[in-house]
């Protein structure tokens, strides 16, 4: 019995991914489906001790259908506030992170003494910023148990913009505007600390700009400014999209953002798993919708070099 070559190769393909496939059904798809089912169930029946957690398929009479979702969006004020604040913060910080990391990547791509050292420092946050260490150094000790730690943040913070506005005599700008300004400027530290991977990706993209493009620009006498807009930006644009998606996903799935904290409280203190599942699913779907729409918009402006 001889299996044709193409067929055999595709079988080998299944062989290579089989380990992952088994794992993903057991540890990813099954829990995902279960948690989707939890969303529609009755909180009171889904308790760890009553055995309700073991079998997913409660009798249909125990299903609550959309009750949990209705609860999350109409009754739960904290959840709505958390949702709005996370969406707003992400909308404000993401463009800042992208611009900042592109700027730093352009600088770190130039030739100068001590470049290796500078790069090492700028990527340092990548290895620390994800853990509980970040909570402690950002003074967010409430996460670790004690209250009112915010004043002991060891992060570098500044209210330069406030001072500048005060100096210029601008005192009464509207509240919402000053919140926006504060979110963006006060937390220079957060900005620098969350751009490590993005700088890395941009830097790699900058190094992939073909030398021919650089030479052509130099021959035509392009200034650094023109070079940035006409050469750098188009070549880097696919990575702007990638970085955008990475940044948004990263900030939405951080365990210490407001929505995630709310979900965790519901899960651990109230033990309302069904409700927590409904919240996290609706959050996830909103995030996906936002990412999808913006990706569609950005991808129209992305330049792909065709070889």
């Amino acid at each position: 019995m001889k299996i044709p070559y193409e067929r055999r190769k595709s079988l080998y393909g299944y062989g290579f991914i089989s380990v992952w496939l088994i794992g993903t059904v057991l540890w990813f798809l099954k829990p995902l489906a279960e948690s989707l089912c939890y969303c529609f169930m009755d909180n009171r029946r889904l308790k760890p001790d009553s055995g309700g957690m073991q079998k997913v398929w409660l009798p249909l009479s125990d299903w609550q259908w959309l009750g949990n979702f209705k609860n999350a969006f109409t009754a739960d004020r904290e959840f709505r506030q958390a949702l709005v604040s996370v969406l707003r913060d992400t909308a404000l910080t993401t463009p800042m992170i992208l611009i900042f990391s592109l700027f730093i990547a352009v600088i770190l791509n130039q030739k100068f003494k001590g470049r290796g050292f500078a790069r090492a420092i700028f990527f340092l946050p990548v290895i620390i910023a994800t853990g509980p260490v970040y909570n402690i150094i950002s003074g967010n000790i409430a996460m670790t148990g004690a209250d009112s730690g915010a004043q002991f943040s060891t992060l570098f913070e500044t209210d330069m913009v406030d001072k500048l506005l005060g100096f210029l005599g601008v005192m009464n700008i509207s509240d919402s505007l000053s919140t926006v300004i504060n979110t963006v400027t006060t937390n220079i530290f957060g900005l620098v600390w969350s751009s490590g991977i993005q700088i890395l990706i941009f830097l790699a993209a900058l190094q992939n700009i073909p030398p021919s493009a650089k030479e052509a620009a130099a021959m035509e006498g392009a200034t650094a400014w023109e070079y940035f807009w006409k050469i750098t930006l188009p070549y880097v644009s696919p990575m702007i999209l990638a970085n955008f998606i990475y940044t948004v996903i990263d900030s939405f799935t951080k365990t210490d953002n407001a929505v995630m904290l709310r979900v965790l409280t519901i899960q651990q203190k109230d033990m309302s798993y069904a409700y927590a599942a409904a919240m996290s699913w609706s959050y996830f779907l909103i995030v996906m919708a936002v990412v999808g729409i913006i990706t569609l918009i950005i991808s129209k402006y992305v330049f792909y070099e065709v070889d």
Partner: protein
Amino acid sequence: MAEEPLQEQEGRIPASAVPDVHEAHEIGSGMTKKEAMHIRMQHMDKAEIAALRRRQLAEKVWPVFRFLILFGLGFVILTPLLFMISYGFRSRADMSDPTIIWIPRHPTLEIMKQTVSAMGLTKSSNNPLLNTLLLNIGCSLCQVASCAVTGYGFARFRFRGRELLFGIVILMILVPTQIISIPLYVTFRYFLFGSVNLIDNPLVMYLPAMTANGIRAGLMIFIFRQFFRGLPKELEDAAYLDGCGPFRTFLKVMIPNAGSSFLTVFLFSIVWYWNDYYVAGSFFSNRKTISMVLKNLDATLNVAIFNNANANVSVREKIIWLEAGCLISITPLLILYACLQKHFTEGIERSGLVG
């Protein structure tokens, strides 16, 4: 035999004879760069000279600006680390002294020692450091191996449903762990139809890692797929022609070519496992890892140092133990980073995340 060194000597040009030349126009003219520039400028009109001057000025000023920007931001990044060191080695009294900001007046190792013992790093059984290292290295090795195999499968073979299955990989990147953690807990609690309780067993971390479903596995599969797609196909075709099967080709031809990519992904995996407290915290209650200990350090401190679970010590004083704990828990990562910094930063480019 005897002639060889002689030949080499003849072929070599003595270092002193090589002129100090940087650019082509300097050769043969005998002029310095400045003189050559002077002659060139005599043939220029005013606008050209002005443009040249401006460029020269910009070239002189920009490095200063660049230094200031990098220095300032570098300082912003390093501030918390410097504070950690400064806080970790000072005594409790120094925190009530407003004149002390950076340099402690009473430097002491006491706080570090207390924190080490409060974190349980001196225990002989169930030592968090040992737990973390075992989990970390074991899971990372398993995960790199399984993700590499999967990534290779997606990169080089055509099979039905490949796009759909790869869509699941993308979904793995997008779905936050929080969504699946509760059902996963139930799965492990009542493993094998309720006959085995895997909670607190290291297997809860090892099983997903072995099947390419550990922490951030989706991203790792994605990186490996991109990387293997970038390798030339001729490598494998040669092996196939010589009668090598796909699995042996992967082992003998592809893996040796992917060394640096493996190392990069392995290092990142170590970092992710080291910093993870959510997944470990969901499945472990008695078995502690460094991150979990650090997360609960505040409560632990109350019991271990102040002998009272509800001790009301002001945060101002407690922060020195917390910072000491931070310092202890990131030191291994910092050492790793300092030694293998190149692989962290340059590996990503080669690992094919881009392109």
